[in-house]
């Protein structure tokens, strides 16, 4: 990978951001995020009666002075936030100029970097499975700490988009395999013949705070091939014949917009943050403006 996924300039700006979690972390590992668990931190949470064996350092002596009873001060436990990035590596993502998959990897790197800087747990779950990239993929699961970011970027750069993916099955499996839920970011073109609803629902059902980014290439939004065409599906290899002319461009684009609108409505109805973008769009604009305004991070 000759070109870095993210420029140093962008990295500097991303360092100032932190993923915003709407729910408290349910992770068991200590971290920087508030959780429902009680433990050691500076954030006071509650009192409880002292029982024998409790650590005397947490006794509230002021209260003992007033009430002559022993109460123990409880503090919120700070846990890490698991951030799971579902990255679509199917053949369909390899299309477009600029390339959709490259754009998705840049996005994944940016989100991952923000999470790593915030001491969150980052996992990149890729689909479909590819044995020859298993090592890189394994390394992308459960990455912690800012110092791991360089290796994280390298591993991302080694990924390729080939093969046929079952979007729904991949998301369902990812949801089941995650030990703790947190923020899930789905990066895909959502062009799966089986639809995307089941996959996203399984993430919601598992308790993830889901954000989705649909990436389409400029060619998919406004095709430049006209005439009598035989279209070959890159993933399935199925051939279909169409007659397409400039006069039908508006009709096509309306259909694309309709597809995107359905996705938006579906996500909005389930509290999923959805962003539709083109691989030709500005990455900075998406990261620093759209995601920020939508309070994905702040």
């Amino acid at each position, binding site marked *: 990978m000759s070109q870095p996924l993210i420029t140093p300039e962008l990295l500097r700006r991303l360092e100032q951001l932190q993923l915003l979690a709407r729910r408290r972390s349910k992770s068991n590992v200590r971290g920087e995020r508030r959780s429902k668990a009680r433990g050691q931190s500076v954030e006071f949470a509650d009192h409880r009666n002292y029982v024998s064996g409790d650590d005397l350092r947490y006794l509230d002596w002021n209260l003992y002075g007033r009430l002559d009873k022993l109460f123990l001060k409880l503090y919120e436990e700070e846990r890490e936030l698991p951030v799971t990035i579902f990255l679509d590596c199917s*053949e*369909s*993502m*390899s*299309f*477009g100029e600029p390339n*959709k998959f490259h754009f998705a990897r840049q996005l994944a790197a940016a989100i991952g970097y923000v999470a790593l800087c915030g001491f969150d747990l980052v996992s990149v779950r890729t689909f479909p499975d590819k044995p020859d990239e298993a090592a890189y993929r394994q390394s992308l699961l459960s990455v912690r700490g800012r110092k791991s970011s360089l290796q994280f970027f390298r591993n991302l750069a080694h990924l390729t988009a080939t093969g046929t993916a079952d979007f729904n099955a991949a998301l369902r499996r990812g949801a089941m395999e995650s030990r703790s839920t947190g923020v899930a970011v789905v990066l895909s*073109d959502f*062009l*799966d*013949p089986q639809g995307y609803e089941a996959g996203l629902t399984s993430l919601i059902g598992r308790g993830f705070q889901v954000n989705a980014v649909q990436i389409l*290439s400029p060619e*998919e939004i406004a095709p430049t*091939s*006209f*005439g*009598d*065409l*035989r*279209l*070959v*599906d*890159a*993933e399935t290899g*199925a051939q*279909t*014949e*169409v*007659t*397409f*002319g*400039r*006069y*039908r461009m508006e*009709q*096509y684009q309306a*259909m*694309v917009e309709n*597809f995107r609108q359905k996705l938006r409505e579906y996500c909005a109805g389930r509290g999923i943050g959805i962003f539709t973008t083109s691989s030709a769009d500005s990455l900075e604009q998406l990261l620093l403006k759209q995601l920020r305004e939508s309070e994905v991070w702040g």
Partner: protein
Amino acid sequence: MNFLAPFAFIFAATLPVVVVFYMLKRRRTVRLVSSTILWQKFLAETQANAPFQKLRNNWLLLLQLLMLAMAVFALSRPYFAATTQEPGLVVVILDGSASMQARDESPNRFEAARKEALKLVDGLKDTDQMMVLLSAGNTVVRQSPSAEKTTLRRVIEECQPGDTPTRVEEAFKLAETLAKNRANVEVHLFSDGAIPTADNLASIKLPVVFHQFGKRANNAGITAMDVRPHPEDPAQRIVFASIYNASSNAVSVSAELRFNGQFMDTKVLSLPARDVASTVFAVEQKQNGVYTLKLKNDDDLATDNEASIISNLPRPVKVLLVSGGNRFLDKALRAVPNVELSTASQLTSGGKGYDIAVLDAVTPLSNPEVNTLAMNVATTNWFESWRMVEGPVIVDWNANHPLMRFVTWDNVQVAQTLGAKAPPWGLVLVEAQQTPLVVAGEKGRQRLVWIGFDSLQSTWPLRVSFPIFMANAMEWLNPQQSDVSQLTMQAGTPFRQPLFASHDIATITLPKGDKKEVKLGEKAKELIWSETYKVGVYKANFGTNETSFTVNLMDPAESDITPKAQVPVGAQGATAGAISKRANLEYWRWFVMAALAVLMFEWWYYHRRTA
């Protein structure tokens, strides 16, 4: 049901083409795409690409085929035979005379007339027929009655005017003949009205619509030209010319005379309004040639601004008189100008070496081979049998023959004459009750004048008609045609040249230099060239001979290009007036053509946009 234009069924060949278009498996470009999900809506339409499937269900194809079939059917003009009113006949007479070339209409009167005639074709009802006559020097039927508008248009487009005078009389007679057994005949005359009054035109009972063309009469033209020897100086020739000014203003024109293209003289003439002025040029002439008079004026009609005339120097005619002695005849022949008379007592070798042989009461040893005047000569092969007729009484004579010009026979008595039956080769010029007295004609290529009686046995030599007849005979029998009047003719008049030897072919050189050939053959006695439609100098070449002849307009009626509001046709005359008639102009053909064009355009546009 029948079809007026069955040829249009050839368009039915386009029906299978439409089907083939639908059946054609279109060559498609292979494109690898990320997914076909976004193309689902377009995929549905392409199901018709399997050839036989779409032919079953494709309404578009059926509608297109139906539309095409109806268009083809309409173009073939189907009709049912049914009883209806007799179709009308419109006779179009296009005046193609010289005056129609006047430029006071744009670009000229004839073109304006043609445009109007084409409008008339457009307004023709489907059941009506039209006939096109082009009337110039003579009338030509350009199109017999026809309802085919395309043909009529083409014919009218092809008509061209000539430099000839108008002869519409013929055209009207023709129209009247055709109209004899038909109702609903209407004659449309497209003319400027420069038509000479004729009695026959007044009796025409056809309804005539006169389409008048011409706006003004700005023209001066040569209406007469002649050349004569100078009465006082034989070395000089006198050229006469009459010039007519048709305009209502007096004009001054310059007349330039050239001989064989060489400038001779010029004169400025003042022409009073609507009047004729004459001019005379006296010029020296040393050889045969053509005088051309040209008016230098910028008027509307150019045809009559130039006239040419042939002028040949007189050449002596060699005449052999074979006679036992006839002083009257001898004197009469010697009195004829240009005659070089020789006398002999017997005809030898057929008269070879002479132009004319005159046999007077002799029995020739051999038949004459040159043009011959024979008086009281019996032993020839000209007649079948002979008898003697005593005291024949002259009952009639043909005064129209050139030989009989200024000759009367009312005081001539004849004592006795040879009697014979009129031969097939000859025309009887003078006739007695029992026998012809004078016969003239052409036997083979030989011109013969036969007089049955001995002049000395009659009172004829004492009459003034005798020397005149002899002079006429010498002129008529002269093979060299010194009479230039026959070499100058009005446009449209045929040129005739007697042939004294057999020629296979003659070449006519037209004024613009084009050459045309005329086949003559062994037995041809005369060269006739009738296509003298354009003015100028023509040349006729046959064998080693070359004869020039000139064609001029020289017609005061044509030079007078004053637009006439009325033409002398019918008892009341036909007046130019409102000529627009209520007619139903059909446009269905255009719509059918448009339907076909739309169909073709649809295919082209569909393929272009998807390309």
